[in-house]
């Protein structure tokens, strides 16, 4: 896409998008594409129970403590306070009821004033 064609539909981009859809399909279905009988070794199956929480925290922490690929060097960052407040809400409620929703709402209630108001 060249700058003069900004916001115009072109075949190249649609082709790329089609390929990306295929990438989503193949990666999400990778290990059950084949119908061959086959089993993961027992240790791997046990190990996978640690994968969901690992994936989540691996996505979350860099988004909280890094900017432009660098660790932040200041505490005056709205994301840090929002994350601490959100997690504190969750554990104060012991995860009961709508604790996840409360985590989002509490976090944003801390984040937005600090970020928009104070520019943190």
């Amino acid at each position, binding site marked *: *896409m060249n*700058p003069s064609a900004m916001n*115009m*539909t072109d075949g190249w*981009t*649609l082709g*790329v*998008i089609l*390929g*990306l859809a295929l*990438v*989503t*399909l193949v*990666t*999400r*279905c*990778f*290990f*059950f*594409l084949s*119908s061959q009988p086959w*089993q*993961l070794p027992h240790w791997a199956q046990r*190990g*996978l*129970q*640690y*994968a*969901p*929480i*690992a*994936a*989540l*925290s*691996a996505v*979350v*922490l860099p*988004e909280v*403590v*890094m900017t432009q*690929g660098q660790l932040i060097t200041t505490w005056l960052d*709205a*994301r840090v306070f*929002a*994350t601490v407040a*959100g*997690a504190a809400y*969750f*554990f104060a409620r012991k995860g009961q009821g709508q*604790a*996840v*929703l*409360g*985590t*989002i709402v509490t*976090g*944003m209630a801390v*984040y*937005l004033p600090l*970020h928009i108001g104070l520019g943190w």
Partner: protein
Amino acid sequence: MARWLAWWRHPEFQLGLREMAAVSPGLAAWGLMTGVAMVKSGMSPLEAVAMSLMVFAGSSQLAAIPLIAAGAPVWVIWATAFCVNLRFVVFSAHMRPYLMHLPLRWRLFNGYLTADLSYVMFTKRFHHPATDAVGQRNQLAYLGGGSFFNWSSWQIASMLGIGLAHSIPTNWGLGFAGILALLGVGCSLASTHLRRVSAGVAAMAAVAAFALPFKLNIVVAIAAAVALCLMLEHLPPTRQPPRVKGPA
């Protein structure tokens, strides 16, 4: 039609819907900002709508958007998306025993719709694959409910973002609600000591390995956390003082 209605009315489908609804503000904010990002990068509304509906993967979309805008080689864009999506390959290994009783087309249907949060909520509710038909139906209904809500709220928010791209301020950081949704679900998974270890190790590894290209730091972090937890499983749960041998 009646078949779909029966799935819709299934109590597990309804539960899946409700549990996913609790994280929907985060999903919606994230979808909204992804919609905005697509249009602001110079994509046409038609391209942005096609991308949202077909690709349906926030992180790989966000990785591909600047590459498309820059006119990068096609294979670079696809390889980047594949690497960003590698965590789904790990998830698919986990999901395999739950889905193998289905014919291929329904495995593809369910797999394609199983994004991060549907996978996490599903494996949180069902620790083992069902062994009978009723159990399999229950599991599939729960997965379907969660995926359906996840898909719809993401798509609606994305369309809004595409339509309102030029009136939604990007510097407010609304997309951070998506991170908070992942944080909340992560907290709800931290139910055992080793899972908390897994979270801590993965978080630090992801930061330490951040310089890797294609978001490979996520996959490295998962591998490190799983490997360490498997090793720790073999340690005795509590250290006991050495037994003193001597005359009774």
